[in-house]
């Protein structure tokens, strides 16, 4: 069975990809993954010799923007490799099969490659009432838990699967939970972003195949190769931030000069992603380069830390547009008023005390003063 599965390279060649393009792809991936030069060889060898990865790709509560991002990856082979070559045995959006056949397909993967297949998940899982997301008569939670049982690893695509995204935003009516909250015992790779950068997605897949283990993850389960630095730290506008040059409104002189978007609510300083380096759409641009502040889509709870165009989030329970600063200032004024009131009472008390205190008899100071 193993030998019958062709390698990535064989499939790519069969599809008319030149050796040159294949090597270019491997080199690009090695660069994105931050590997040293020898890593290119490792990737080439892995893609040439290792059989393709069996993959089950689930869509739960999501918008398919992760898939959309993926098929628009900059390098043609990147999208190809996963969607055609990676033996995408089950992918609700892109698979030809439907209904009964589709169900058969993914059950076949689980039966044929136990301990080998990768479960890739787009979307969050409802827990308030499992019926909010059902496929083929079974709930997302049931499907996921069954599929995960014998898988090698789980890849959680995007903010939905990694942190719940908009479905989990307050008040979270469906009780949406990210993948790592509802399963246990299997490694989960959180590929954050809404959607994640296509090349980052491809990089994760290539890493899984080349090194046969999950990439090094950070404290929030994100691959460190792509999520160890803030968008802010890799931003080409950073020099403007350090120089104190800020855009104050979208059409001012600063905006034209490309100043820092910090005061426009840019979440770059609190967001970990590779937007500043890999960029989007064939590395053409990314939001900040296009003049829009980062909305922090690769961070958990970014919907609840809004609004997007102001840096300090609103404080829940204090009404619209109430920030910590406004509350702080209000408390400061209240404190000042309290202090003033207290000072008045204190003075009345002090005056009484002075009146009640008898002058010391025979005090030298007293006599000198009086005479």
């Amino acid at each position: 069975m193993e030998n019958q599965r062709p390698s990535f390279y064989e499939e790519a060649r069969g599809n008319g990809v030149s050796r040159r393009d294949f090597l270019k792809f491997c080199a690009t991936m090695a660069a994105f993954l931050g590997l040293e030069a020898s890593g290119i060889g490792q990737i080439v060898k892995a893609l040439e010799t290792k059989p393709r990865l069996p993959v089950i790709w689930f869509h739960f509560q999501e918008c398919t923007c992760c898939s959309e991002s993926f098929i628009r990856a900059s390098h043609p082979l990147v999208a190809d490799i996963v969607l055609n070559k990676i033996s995408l045995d089950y992918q609700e959006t892109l698979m030809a099969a439907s209904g009964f056949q589709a169900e058969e397909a993914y059950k076949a993967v689980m039966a044929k490659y136990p301990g080998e297949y990768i479960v890739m998940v787009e979307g969050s899982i409802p827990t308030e009432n499992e019926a909010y997301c059902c496929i083929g008569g079974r709930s997302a939670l049931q499907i996921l838990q069954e599929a995960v049982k014998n898988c090698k690893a789980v890849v959680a695509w995007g903010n939905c699967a990694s942190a719940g995204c908009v479905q989990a935003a307050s008040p979270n009516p469906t009780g949406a939970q990210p993948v790592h909250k509802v399963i246990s015992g299997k490694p989960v790779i959180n590929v954050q972003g809404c959607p994640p950068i296509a090349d980052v997605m491809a990089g994760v897949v290539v890493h899984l195949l080349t090194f046969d283990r999950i990439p090094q993850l950070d404290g929030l389960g994100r691959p460190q190769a792509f999520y160890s630095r803030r968008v802010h730290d890799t931003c080409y506008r950073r020099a403007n931030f350090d120089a104190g040059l800020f855009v104050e409104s979208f059409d001012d002189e600063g905006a034209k000069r490309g100043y820092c978007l910090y005061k426009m609510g840019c979440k770059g300083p609190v967001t970990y992603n590779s937007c500043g380096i890999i960029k989007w759409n064939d590395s053409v641009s990314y939001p900040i380069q296009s003049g829009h502040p980062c909305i922090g889509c690769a961070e958990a709870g970014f919907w609840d830390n809004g609004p997007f165009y102001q840096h300090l989030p609103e404080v829940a329970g204090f009404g619209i547009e109430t920030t910590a600063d406004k509350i702080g200032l209000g408390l400061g004024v209240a404190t000042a008023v309290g202090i003033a009131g207290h000072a008045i009472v204190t003075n009345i008390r002090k005056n009484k005390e002075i009146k009640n205190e008898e002058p010391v008899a025979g005090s030298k100071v007293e006599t000198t003063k009086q005479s």
Partner: protein
Amino acid sequence: MRNRSVPLREVHVWEMPVRLYHWINALCITVLCVTGYVIGDPPAFMKGTEASFNYWFGTVRFIHFISAFLFFFNFIFRIYWGFTGNEFSRWYNFIPLKRCQWKEMLEVIKVDILQVTNKNIDSIGHNSLASFIYFITFLIFLLQCLTGFGMYAAMSNAFLPKLFSWIVPFLGGDMQVRQIHHVLMWGFILFAMIHVYLVFYHDYIERRGVTSSMIGGWKFIEEDVIERHDNRTEDCPKDI
């Protein structure tokens, strides 16, 4: 002119290290609040220039970070001094574990805050309520250090900040950590307002020289208060 008839004695309450801690702390907090606020909401006073020649915002952040390190080590030192200093600076003053400390707190609220009774509080060092409030500020110090270094950890490879790299994952992300850090700043500002006022108030009413005690270390305490302090059976004055 009137003359105080109560016999007083000078007591060396705040040792040199405590006073030094206090003023370094005050300086750090002032600098941290000002620079912190500027970092959160920078004034855009420069326009029509290029980034090449300027670095003022970077400098503001640099000052913030340096002050933060100083604040952190100063705080660590104060905790150490809580175990080696004199009786007024010891850790047990700050944590209300004894009944008499809670009783004194009620007393202080009645006398100093509500001003319903006219009576002097016997404490020579901090009174119980003040101590407890300082304990809460110590907790805020701790939280502020944790969240601050937590955010700093991502841009540093140094040993100390790296110790805090678990904070961000623990709290869910930089946004949440930043928000907590920002809200706590207001805690410092409000505390400073009330603290300075109350120092003046106590000096005004109790006339024990509280304000200057943080400069020279000496307080002027009534003889009978000292007597009661020396003759107490537990750690709190008996009559409270």
